[in-house]
Every structure is written in C-alpha cells, then in structure tokens.
C-alpha cells in the first residue's frame, strides 16, 4: 500500500517536472537545476549558523549536566546515609530528592523545546537567505526557472550542462562574504 502511494507521488512529481520543463522551454530562457541539499550543506551561512547553534546547545547541555551531577551526588549521599537516618529525616530527604528530580525533568524538557526552536529558526533564516539569492540570481542570469533537486524524486535526472549547483554555491558564498553587489 505504502509503495503504491510512493509510486503515485513520484509519478505525479515527474509529470509536473516534465510539464514545467516543457512550458519554461517555450519562454526562451533556460531551465536549470540545482542540488538544493548540496547548496545548503556547502553554504557558509549555514555552516556558521550551525556552529553558533551547536555552541548554544553545548552551553545548555553543560548547565543541565551540572544540575544532574548535583542530583546524582545527593542521591548517592542519601543511599549511604539512609540506614543512619530517622524515619522523619528519611521522608524529608526523599521528598527533597523528588522535587529536585522533577525540576531536572522540567529543565530537560525546556532545553529540548529551546533547542528545537533554535534549530527551526536557524533553518528558516538560512532558507530565506538562499531563496532570496536564488531568485535574484535567476533573474540576473535570465533563467526561465531554477528547479531544486533534493533527492526526493522531483528531479530524477539532470544533464551536466544544466546543473548549476557549483556555480550557485560559489556565487552564494561570495555574496555571503562580500554582501549584495
């Protein structure tokens, strides 16, 4: 069943792509293709944003690990002293540890949410930058369309002559360093 759906989607995408190629070929400008995944991976803006994201995640993990370390040593301390404590002291310590554990779990969830949000913000910024560039680049070069191949079957074959991936990566990185000309 799943395979049937996949084949139908791939088939529909292939038809749309052929139609796009056919209709754009009538407009006079060339239709070219870029490997969008490669553009993303080799874009300096993405690499720099990824480094900054990883540094933020490391900082957050560090503060979480410090708190976890305190919780673990408190738990160990309780286990060693448990037999020497009175019933009242035992239940107080257990309650304190339960509160600490709950706070730790809350912090973990908050950090997870924050990192997910940071990641989607990072990608949105990077995609917006790439899309803005590709639109201006296409107009400047007089292309009728720039199709993005992303390995999902929307573009199944590309002749080397219409693959402008490297050209786009070079120009995109140049603009990233030197600004819009």
């Amino acid at each position, binding site marked *: 069943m799943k395979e049937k759906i996949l084949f139908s989607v791939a088939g529909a995408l292939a038809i749309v792509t052929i139609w796009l190629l056919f209709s754009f070929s009538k407009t006079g400008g060339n239709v070219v293709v870029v490997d969008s995944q490669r553009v993303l991976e080799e874009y300096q803006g993405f690499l720099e944003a990824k480094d900054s994201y990883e540094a933020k995640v490391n900082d957050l993990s560090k503060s979480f690990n410090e708190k976890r370390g305190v919780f673990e040593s408190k738990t160990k301390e309780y286990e060693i002293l448990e037999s020497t404590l009175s019933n009242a002291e035992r239940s107080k310590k257990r309650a304190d540890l339960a509160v600490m554990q709950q706070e730790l779990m809350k912090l973990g969830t908050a950090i997870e949410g924050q990192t997910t949000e940071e990641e989607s913000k*990072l990608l949105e910024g990077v995609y917006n930058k790439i899309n*803005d560039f590709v639109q201006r680049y296409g107009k400047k070069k007089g292309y009728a369309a720039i199709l993005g191949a992303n390995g999902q079957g929307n573009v199944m074959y590309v002749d080397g002559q219409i693959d402008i991936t490297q050209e786009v990566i070079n120009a995109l990185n140049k603009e990233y360093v030197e*600004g819009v000309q």
Partner: protein
Amino acid sequence: MTIAALALSSCTRSIGSETAFLKWLDNPKNGLVKKASANGFSFSLKFLPSEYLAYTELKKGNDEKGWNELLHDFESSMSVLFSIEHDMHGIDATNYDIQNMAAYKERINELNFGLKQHLFIKGSEGKKIRPVLTTFENNYEIGGKKTFYVVFPKTDEEQWKTESLDIVFDDPFLDTGISHFAFKKQHIDQIPTLEFIN
C-alpha cells in the same frame, strides 16, 4: 603609463561640497555601503567617516570642544548607520511576526536596547567586539525604513590593522539568518579629503 595610472588611482581625492561627499559616500562602488537581503528585508550598513562626524557636530555649535578635540573623539571609535527595510508596505522591523501588544513592546525594547547582542565586529580568534552605543533613530517615523546609529569601540588595535573589517548581524527577529558586512581597509583609507570643512 600603468605605474602613473596606479599612482593616480591610489591617491586620496578631495571633495569640495557636502552634497557631493554624501553622494560619494552612498555610491556602493566606493565600498563604504554594504548590503544584504533575505525574507523581503534589505539591510544596509554605511560607514561614517570620523572627519565628517566631527564636522556635523561642529556645525551644530552646541559643543564647547574645538575641531581637533572633536576629531580625536570620533577617531577613537567607529560609527556606522544600520538600516532595515522591507519590500512590502506595512511590514518593518518593529512589527514583523508580532502577534500582540506585549510582543510589540518587547520588540521595541529589543531594538532600542538589545541590538548590541546581535550586531558585532568579528574579531580575531572568534572574538566578538560589540557596540558601545546603538541608537534607534526612526522610532516614530511612519515609513518602513528603520535606522540605527551604531558606535563600535577601537579597543582591539590589531583588528584595525587587518585588510578588512567584518561586521556581523546575527538576526534574532526577522528570519534572515546571519549577514556579513565586510569593509575593506583599502576603501576606508581612500576616503577623500573634505575640503568644505575649512
């Protein structure tokens, strides 16, 4: 012939009027205005020469300092004008992605006082040199262009001797990612002499 042409081109020119100088400064070919864009937003960062800043301050006449003192003050820092504009009417840096009044107030507060955290000079070994002053200039303007006057300290002497000066905007509000504005030292050194000052 070639040597003569090179020598001529490397000479610092002089400019006779303020209007002509401002026109020269705004010409991207002279390398003192850098631009970036994404998500419908256009960013522009303009280098402001200290000589011109001292001149405008002197012209106001409300400072007791003389020309040399003013020039010294402005030469001990670096000032730039940072502008943000959206290509659609009604959208700007103060209201993009804002859902309610509380968020609007937070954005205004961020733009007024928090920009220092997101705009910096990329120093050596990953050091970030942050501004000592950022002033949100067009807070009450109806138009969409928002402008900030930004002053960076000249604390890291080594940084000012390098070939280029890279100012980075790591955008937290407008979904435009990281933008670089790299000024070449060669362009800063070629700022014309302002004849109209005297």
